[in-house]
Structures are given as C-alpha cells and as structure tokens.
C-alpha cells in the first residue's frame, strides 16, 4: 500500500519548484549554509542565502529550516499554492534567556569584570544558600549571621550596594539589614552571573558593589519533557534538601515549568558543641508558563519562598555587659541537646514574586520587552521577650510590597553595534505592623522610583569592542515615622527638621520625612582580544545610590542584635567611581585571569559602633550611620591548569583593602585576603568519576576599625569592648567525589559525596556576626543524589 502510495504520488506530475531566501530576522542578512530538510533530503543555501528545491509533488510538505545557533523552524507548505517563500531565522540569540552560559563566557557586559557559575556548581549547593554558592566566584565573600543567613559581599561591598536580579526581577526583600539574607531558592537557578561593579546599567544604576543575575533554565522550543530531582543529606544539622523540577516544552514555543524545594535542618554543630537554635526550615515553589516564539512571546512566572531560621540562642544578649561576658567566655553560654525545633530568637520570612513579560521582535530592528512584576516580602523576627504571650508576637513585623514596570527596546539589527534603551517605574510600600508592641525600627513608607537608561555596544572590529551607557534614576521616599522626643532632640533634628513634625503624641513626634534623590550613573569601557587567547577588559563606572530606609530612619534598640542602630535624616546619596581591569588568557591547558580594581566612593554610608547608651536594662552599644569618603582597592586572580587528561588544578586569590580617605581608618566588614587551591582528578570512562580536594586559607583581617571604650554599669567603670577584634587566620580542607550512572534509557543518576571541613577545625570567621559567641561549623558529610529524567 505504502509503495503504491508513493507510486501514485510519483505518478502525479512532481515538477513543482519552490525557491526563496533564508534571512536573518534581525538584520535582514541572507544566511549562507542554512539547511532545509524534507523527506530525508537536505538542501543548503548558497552565499546569498538562496535556495531552490525542484521536483516536488503538488502536495503539502513539512520543511525544517535550520541554521547554526538558530532555533529550527518547521513550516508546512502546500506546493499547489506556493512556489516562492522566504524564511526568517532568528540568528542572534537573545541575551536574557537563550544564551548558553558556559564557565568562561562573559555575557552581561563587554568590559567589566564578570564571572558565571553554571549548573554543576549550583547543584553542589542545593542544600545551601545563594550566598554560599556565590563564594565560588573569586572576589565574592559573604556576611553571615550563623550558617544559614548569608549575604553576598562583592569586592568588599554588601547589602543595598548589591542588586540581585532573580529571573529578570530586581529583588526587593529588605536587603538593608545585616541579618537579612536574599530570599532566593538557589534551586530555581540555571546559572548565576556576578557583575563586579555597576557597569550592567540596565539592571539599575545603584549597583556600587555589583549585580547578581540569577537566570532560570532555558526551555528549548522542542517537544521535550525534562525532569530533575536532587536529594541532599548532611550529617551536620542532621537534615537535607529535596528539590525537583520539570519542564515541558513544545515545538510551537509553549512551555511550562514547575519547581519545588523543601529544606529542613536541625541545630548545626561546631567541632566541640551544638550550636543551639540554628535550625532552618525552607520551602520554595515556582511555576512559569508562556510562549517563546520566534517573533514574539510572553510568559508568566510566580515563585513563593518561605524560610524559618533559628538564630543562635547564645547570641541573644541583654546588654553590653552580657556582650563583654560572651566575648571573654569563648564558649556559648547556652548549649542544649540537638533538636529540629526552632525557638525564639528566630526569623520567618516569606517572599512572593510574580512576573508577566511580553516581547516582540521587529524585523530588521530589534526586540522590545515589557515586564510587570510584583513582590511581597514579609518579615517576622521573634525575640526573647518578657512573657510567654509576647514571645508569640514578633518584635519586627514588616511587609514590603513592590510593583515594577519596565520596558526596553534593544536595537540589534546592525552587525557592528547594539543599542538598548529602557525605562522603569516602581512603587513600593512598607508597612510596619503596630501589633508588635515594639517601636518600629523601619517606619511605614512609600517609595517611588523612575529610571531611564541607554546602553550601547560597538564592535570596532573583531578584536575590539567598546561599550558605554548612561542612566538616570529618580527616587522619592515618603515616610511616616515616630521619633521619641528625646531622640529627636539628641539628633539635633529639632533645629534642622522641625518642619517635618505632623503630630504630637505624648512622648513621641509623628514626622513625615519626604526626600528626593536624583541619581546619575554611567559606564564606558572596552574589550580587546589579542594573540587569539588573550583578552583585556577595561571599565569605568560611575554609580549613585540613594540611602535605604534603614540608613535614614533606624532609631532605637534592635533587639535581636542588642544594639542601638541610628540612621540619619541628613544622609545623602553615595557616589562611586570604579575603575576595573582584567587580563585573561584562555587556552585548553592554561587559563588565568588577573583583575585589579579601585573604587572611590564619596559619601559612603557606613554603620560603625561609636559609643554606648545607658538605660535601666543596662548599656547598649550604639551603631551609627554616617558618611565618609572611602576607597576600596583590590585584586582578584585565578588560575586553572589542566596538567593532563586526568589531573587539573585551580587556584584563586582575592584581596581587598577598604579605608576612609581622610584618616586611613579601615572600613568595617571588609573580607580578609584568602587563597583557595583545588586539585581535581577526573576519569570520564570510570562512570564519569571525579574527585577533588580543596584547601581554603583565610588570613586574619588585620585592618579593622578601633575597638571602643564603653562604660559598664555592672562594673561602674570604663571597659574595652572588643567588638572589632578580628579572629585568627584559619585553614579549611574540603573533599568531594562524584560518579554518574545511566539509568534506563535517557535517564541518569549522579551520586556525590562531599566532606566539608574535613579536619574538623575550630575557627571563627570575621564576617560572621556570631563570631563573638561561638565557633563556626565543624565537619560535615554530604551525600547528594541527582536524577535526570
């Protein structure tokens, strides 16, 4: 029958011809060597992108049109009706969602320092946090509160100076607090790029520290159903993580993705004792669906993140005398039996993120993208309070709601330059619930932002690329804040800001501070490739950042930290001038990069301990926000060597020095220099076996601000508060081994075993706020199973 059919068809007059051109959709250039496949035959286009297919029957054919680096297209054509057809293929890949990210590829800017971590590394951190994974990048460290609250530090800067772009959305999750970690489930990430500086202007103009760009997996426009499950178990904390994702793609561009993570750990352990109340219970889900077509597409994304984190019991202190006692004791005063229960003090944070995005490509012009995103961040901090009833009520209860609309047009039709122009509008509302019965540390406020940017890349020739950009941002903050009358006068606001008072409520003034900031940022740089394997990058970035609500408005006792934090209404925006260079060599056996930078920041906002204030509860250290001109100088270097097919080593070093310009006073919380060396053995045909040993050496941070002398009410005398004394240098050893098994047909199982802190070394980290109270984590065995299906 089948043969008959063919014969019947051939018996028809198969003399139809179709011809046309295959064209790049963006710039209209004809594509040479593009292929058209039908009925197992393949035709290629000539140098003009033209094709002719002869001897076709008068029926419908499905042609598959492909070109290198393009998404293939399948087009059905009825030869009875059509004899000429031009096909448009998308040749340039869109940076935001379709670029295949590999380890060495730099793709967010052309001239600034960048580094990307991909799937393999992220999988290793499935049971850890975003901040932990980012430390894999040279020059990135973290500011910790215990083991579970991890804030990234990029080249010495943290908090509001770092933008976290999660799936195209700038995270608005109260990044101003030192004990507020980013609300991101690392398992949602397909790759993470860190831009070390403010050069990636499209994401924001205030990234004085840098930008962390978290991107999801890419769904190919093919009929696919892919799933992955990672199960990690760890003995330290006696818990683990399970994370699963599935993604369904269709040839017509539709896709659907879903992902979920559950993480549960009990108290973690230092080498000599249990760190009581350090458990964590984290839940995350995300779903997205949409259409990713050739000419247009849309998607909807929603994610929910819920994290309950215990704060080391012994770190809850009453007053400065307790702090002095803790520092002198060297051992936690509270060591209880292991438990999964999380008691006060603890944090409960939830984050909702929703996004709608639409894009359209214009032939021979570019791509227009518009996005609306919504975020709601809710933070509870529970403290040890006077009564059982009060302990059930959080001491901090904040709800931060953000709406953002962004729109940008990327002109990428020309082969020698690309322009990207966009706008942003944002509205944010913070609500501090009075049910806490504790004075609000962060007031109710409304914030309005508007921004506009233009960036461009110019390919001078194959070796030389210039990039530049300019951005303007307007910020307005409109707060309603109560000040204790005594504090208002002590700050001198009664003379400077008396016009802000709107109500007298006994011992407090209700004020309405309304401030505006105009911020300009700009960048320029180049990338020069020479002798095939070398690349030189140079970038200058100007960035301005308006003060965050904490820097402006904090006033009063931060119970969880037992310190009085004082903002200042007079604080202006800070301005950074950063010059960064990088020189790298890439070849198969030998890859290195050396990247020095200097960052001058005028009116840098710093939070330092300055004095103590006395009360009936005892004395509390006062941490004040003030401004100073500072400079940060540093270098990141790494080296990767492939000695032979089996052995590889990698080495990295980073150093940063931060000082106040006027008096050379060192800045607080600057990472100590560290050296990382790793040796890896890899044999692909032993079930993909690889094993590595990593050594990390952290120097002592010798450059710290001076300690302060405080009056101890208990001792009725001045004592030295060693709040800035850095811990000693330390060395950690880690080991890791992995193998892969094929399972059934296309499935795969990976088994990984890792040991962290192999030698069970006792150490304290200068950048861990709990260093006054307890040692850091002891040895930890992790077993990881990854199923790909």
């Amino acid at each position, binding site marked *: 029958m089948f043969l008959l059919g063919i014969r019947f068809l051939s018996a028809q007059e198969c003399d139809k011809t179709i011809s046309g051109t295959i064209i790049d959709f963006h710039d209209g250039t004809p594509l040479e060597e593009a292929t058209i496949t039908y009925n197992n035959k393949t035709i290629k286009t000539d140098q003009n992108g033209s094709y002719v297919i002869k001897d076709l029957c008068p029926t419908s054919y499905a042609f598959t049109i492909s070109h290198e680096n393009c998404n293939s297209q399948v087009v059905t054509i009825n030869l009875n009706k059509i004899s000429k057809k031009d096909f448009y293929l998308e040749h340039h890949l869109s940076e935001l969602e379709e670029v295949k990210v590999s380890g060495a590829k730099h793709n967010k800017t052309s001239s600034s320092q960048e580094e990307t971590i991909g799937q393999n590394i992220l999988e290793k951190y499935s049971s850890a946090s975003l901040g932990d994974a980012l430390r894999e990048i040279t020059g990135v460290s973290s500011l910790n509160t215990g083991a579970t609250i991890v804030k990234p530090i990029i080249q010495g800067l943290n908090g509001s100076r770092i933008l976290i772009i999660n799936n195209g959305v700038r995270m608005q999750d109260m990044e101003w607090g030192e004990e507020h970690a980013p609300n991101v489930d690392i398992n949602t990430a397909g790759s993470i790029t860190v831009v070390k500086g403010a050069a990636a202007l499209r994401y924001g103009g205030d990234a004085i520290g840098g930008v962390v760009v978290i991107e999801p997996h890419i769904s190919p426009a093919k009929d696919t159903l892919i799933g992955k499950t990672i199960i990690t178990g760890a003995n330290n904390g006696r818990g683990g993580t399970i994370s699963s994702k599935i993604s369904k793609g269709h040839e017509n561009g539709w896709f659907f993705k879903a992902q979920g993570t559950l993480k549960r750990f009990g108290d973690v352990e230092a080498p000599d004792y249990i760190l009581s109340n350090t458990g964590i219970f984290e839940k995350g889900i995300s779903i997205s669906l949409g259409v990713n077509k050739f000419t*247009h597409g849309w998607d909807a994304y929603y994610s929910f993140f819920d994290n309950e984190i215990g704060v080391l019991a012994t770190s809850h202190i009453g007053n400065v005398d307790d702090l002095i006692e803790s520092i002198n004791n060297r051992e936690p005063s509270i060591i209880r039996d292991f438990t999964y229960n999380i008691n006060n003090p603890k944090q409960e944070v939830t984050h909702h993120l929703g996004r709608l995005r639409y894009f359209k490509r214009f032939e021979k012009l570019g791509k227009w993208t518009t996005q*609306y995103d919504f975020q709601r961040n809710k933070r509870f901090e529970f403290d*040890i309070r006077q009564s059982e009833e009060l302990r059930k009520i959080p001491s901090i209860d904040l709800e931060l709601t953000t709406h953002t609309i962004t729109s940008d047009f990327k002109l990428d039709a020309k082969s020698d330059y690309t322009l990207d122009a966009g706008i942003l509008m944002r509205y944010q509302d913070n609500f501090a619930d*009075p049910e806490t019965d504790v004075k609000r540390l962060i007031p109710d406020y409304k914030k309005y932002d508007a921004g506009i940017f233009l960036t461009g890349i110019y390919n001078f020739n194959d070796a030389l690329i210039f990039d530049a950009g300019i951005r303007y941002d307007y910020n307005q903050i409109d707060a309603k804040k109560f000040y204790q009358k*005594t504090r208002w006068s002590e700050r001198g606001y009664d003379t400077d800001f008396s016009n802000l008072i709107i109500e007298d*409520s006994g011992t407090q003034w*209700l004020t309405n501070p309304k401030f505006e900031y105009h911020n300009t940022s700009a960048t320029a740089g180049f990338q020069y490739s020479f002798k095939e394997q070398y690349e030189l990058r140079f970038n200058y970035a100007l960035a301005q950042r308006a003060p965050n609500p904490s820097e402006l408005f904090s006033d009063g006792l931060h119970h969880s930290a037992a310190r*009085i934090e004082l903002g200042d209404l007079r604080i202006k925006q800070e301005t950074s001038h950063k010059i960064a260079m990088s020189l790298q060599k890439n070849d198969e056996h030998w890859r290195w990069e050396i990247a020095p930078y200097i960052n001058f920041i005028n009116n840098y906002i710093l939070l330092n301990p300055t004095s103590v204030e006395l009360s*009936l509860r005892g004395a509390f250290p006062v941490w004040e926000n003030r401004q100073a001109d500072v400079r940060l100088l540093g270098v990141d270097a790494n080296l990767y060597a492939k000695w032979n097919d089996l052995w590889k080593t990698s080495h990295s070093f980073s150093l940063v020095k931060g000082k106040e310009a006027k008096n050379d006073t060192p800045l607080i919380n600057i990472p100590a220099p560290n050296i990382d060396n790793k040796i890896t053995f890899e044999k692909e045909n032993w079930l993909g076996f690889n094993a590595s040993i990593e050594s990390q050496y952290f120097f002592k941070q010798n450059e710290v601000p001076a300690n302060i002398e405080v009056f101890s*009410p208990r001792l009725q005398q001045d004592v030295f508060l060693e709040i800035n004394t850095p811990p000693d240098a330390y060395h950690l050893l880690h080991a890791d081994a992995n193998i892969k098994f094929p399972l059934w047909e296309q499935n795969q199982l990976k088994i990984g075993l890792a040991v962290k802190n192999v030698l069970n070394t006792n150490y304290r980290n200068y950048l861990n706020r709990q260093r006054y109270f307890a040692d850091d984590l002891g040895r930890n065995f992790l077993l990881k199973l990854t199923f790909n299906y």
Partner: protein
Amino acid sequence: MKNIKFISALVITGILFISCSSDDDNPVPINDEELITTLTITLTSGNDVVTLKSYDEDGADGPTAPAITVSKNLSANTTYSGVISLLNESENPAENVNEEIEEEADEHQFFLEGRNGLNLTTTYTDKESDYLTSGSENPVGITFDLTTTDASSGIFTVTLRHMPKKPNDGTLTDAGGDTDLSQSFDLTIE
C-alpha cells in the same frame, strides 16, 4: 492588535495595584509594652528608710541615661528589709511591672550584689510559692534582707534575669538567662 491588548491589560493591572494600595492614614504610635522606667528599692530598718531610685524616662530606645538617686547613706552593722518596685511611668496611670514578674515568678530572679569593697550581704526573703500557687521554694528576690557590716563604700548592683537557670548558685554567670534590668548604685555605709 492582540499585543496591544495584552500590554494595555498589563499596564492597567499595574496602575490598579498602585492606586489600590495608596492610603494616607497616619500610623498609630507604639508604646513599648515591656518598658520599665522606674526602679525603686526601699530599704527599711525601723525608722531608718533608705530609697535607691533609677528613673529612665525613655527606656532602652531613647538616648537619655537613667537618673539615679540614693536618699541617704546606709548605717553600718544594720539589717534592712528590702523591697523592689518596678514601674512603667510612661503610661498613665503608671503600670506596676511587679505584677508581671510575680505572675511569672518561676521565670524571673533578681540578683543583688555588693562590689568594690562595699561591705554588705543580701539574702532572699521570698520564694516562688509566695506568688504562684504551684510555685517552688526557689527565690525570686522582690523582697530580701540586706545586712551591712563595717563602714565602706562601693557599688550595689541589681540585675533582673528572665529565664535564668533555677535553682542556681546565686551568681549571674551560673544563672544565665536574659537581662531585663541592670542597674548599679554607688553606696556608702557609715
């Protein structure tokens, strides 16, 4: 056309969200429930009454340091019976914080200490069962006896700990817990 619709929907949704969430109500003031403004220790021996007082008008959040007063010097070789009173005078009428401590007597304890050469000793004269029906015999320290010996001067420290280890050996180090109140008085025994 479809696209335009989609974008309009997007923008309108955004604007709606924004306009819905605006409200211009003023926030309500919060008064710290746990505030203790006034500590008064009354020491009585017959007609000899000595009052130690510390008044902190703005609590731990405020910049003002407590105002400390001692009505007169203690007499040597005397036993005083002492009573501690805690008030929150930021409220009207003033809130008696002693009541809260009595209700949770099992979770609280005062620690009293003469230091820097001040010749006095204290003994607790109350126990949890004085305040709680099911209370134990562990001391609370709202009432105590203070016995002076030779003339001297030094520091008298009062600390209120929340959730200390109970029973304990009477020292702060052994007791642990959280400090709710900590105040020192310069005293002279003559």
